């Protein structure tokens, strides 16, 4: 199933992205080649040293929306601009894009040559008598293939993120694996395992009750409950390593592994720390109000996950994959 989901994410992404770009091109969503009318309030006129006009570009929201055929711009657009007249007589304009810029222009700027500015050429410019206000007609630089560019960028960025995340795990992994190793040598894990046998033997019938995997899984689940994410992942990976020692067919997940994974993905925690912290940061009167509801939600997820994992593992198509035959085990070791 993972193969299909993975493929679908990529294929659907590429098709939707390409489709959006083609429709943008046909509809000319970014009005490439069309002049937009604006007013510039001049703040600095050119001097001998500086060849540029500087000022503030003003476009009423209504005409901005009408020009692009959108409705998202709510207030009048005011942005700093610079205009330079080249020796050829052509005047170029640079619009500096900031956080208060309309989303539409921010998206265009992200996909143009300068990430925080829009470049364009001035078709016509008409100054008022005292040279303090100018009516300009501007053609912005061409913007196209926005989604395909975004897809390329995302693919490269996320590959980078994956490595950053993995490398970031090295330290905590080493710390917890070291600590757990001490507990193992001291016989502490065995003690913990024996204590919880009634529960774990039911959840993981394939795992011998006194196997070290059980203790690692119990510690992982406990760390998750307490919201100790830094500890939970290394302990979970330790549990996986132990579970894999009992795996007759390397490269294929056992029933116990799937059950353990589902417990983890359901994410049952007694205190959803991240959500509470963000609620507090957003000025909530009662940030902790979601503790009960989150436990209920994650409880639903855990129960549903455990029930479905136990039902699914009995289906012939998943049972079949556990069988060890020489050919398939060789290829999966590959």
């Amino acid at each position, binding site marked *: *199933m993972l193969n299909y989901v993975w493929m679908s994410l990529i294929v659907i992404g590429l098709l939707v992205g390409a489709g959006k770009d083609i429709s943008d091109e046909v509809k000319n969503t970014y009005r490439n080649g069309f002049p937009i009318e604006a007013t510039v309030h001049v703040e600095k006129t050119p001097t001998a040293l500086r060849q540029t006009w500087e000022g503030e570009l003003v476009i009423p929201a209504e005409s901005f929306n009408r020009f692009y055929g959108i409705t998202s711009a709510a207030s009048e657009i005011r942005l700093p601009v610079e205009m330079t007249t080249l020796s050829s007589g052509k005047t170029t304009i640079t619009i500096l894009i900031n956080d208060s810029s309309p989303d539409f222009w921010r998206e265009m700027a992200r996909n143009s040559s300068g990430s925080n500015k829009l470049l364009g050429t001035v078709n016509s410019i008409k100054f008022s008598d005292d040279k303090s206000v100018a009516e300009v007609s501007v053609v912005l630089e061409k913007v196209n293939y926005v989604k395909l560019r975004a897809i390329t960028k995302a693919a490269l960025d996320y590959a980078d993120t994956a490595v950053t995340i993995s490398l970031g795990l090295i330290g905590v*992994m080493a710390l917890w694996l070291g600590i757990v190793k001490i507990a193992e040598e001291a016989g502490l894990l065995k003690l913990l395992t024996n204590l919880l046998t009634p529960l774990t033997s039911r959840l993981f019938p394939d795992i011998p009750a006194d196997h070290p995997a059980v203790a690692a899984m119990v510690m992982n689940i406990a760390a998750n409950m307490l919201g100790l994410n830094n500890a939970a*992942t290394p302990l979970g990976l330790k549990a*996986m390593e132990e579970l894999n020692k009992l795996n007759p067919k390397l490269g294929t997940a056992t029933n116990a592994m799937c059950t353990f994974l589902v417990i983890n993905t359901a994410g049952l925690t007694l*205190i959803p720390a991240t*959500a509470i912290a963000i609620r507090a940061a957003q000025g909530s009167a009662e940030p902790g109000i979601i503790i009960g509801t989150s436990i209920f939600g994650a409880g639903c997820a855990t129960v549903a996950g455990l029930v479905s994992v136990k039902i699914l593992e009995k289906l012939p198509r998943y049972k079949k994959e556990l069988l060890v035959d020489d050919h398939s085990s060789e290829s999966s070791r590959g």
Partner: protein
Amino acid sequence: MVELFRNIINIISVAAVPLMFLVFVGWGIVRKVKVYEVFVEGAKDGFHVAIKIIPFLVAMLVAIGIFRASGAMDVVIAVLSPVSSLIGMPPETVPLAILRPLSGSGSMGLMTELMKVHGPDSFIGVLASTMYGSSETTFYVLAVYFGSVGIKNTRHALPAGIIADIFGMLGALFICRIFFGV
């Protein structure tokens, strides 16, 4: 009541790690384990495990990145919106429900944005934070946990994980409608 519970949990969370260090190392010393040597021996594996995860995580995150960047989410939301309105789920929270199992940082950003727009104590704000707290980033956990031991055939783990996610989101919606419903 909620406040007391929260305080207790808070104290346990803060004390858990130091306590674990103390108990584990202390127990080791009592049982005459060469704690330093054994620690180093165990810690050695940390590097290998982290490195082993990389290809799995790259594969997973790149696919999710492409899907998100393409705007395909809008298509999925359009398909799901009749269903969500049928069960009384505010349309604003549908993207969060879909993104939650795919991307931890992405869904955190969406939740923050929903609270910023609608207020953290509004129905949508409470529902969004409950939904965030009701599940884990399934695809990430799958890639990391199975990746660390080189599992390529994940069998029924993904379908079961997705069923769990769906029920987590429905559970969040159900309980929020009961307690904070409009």
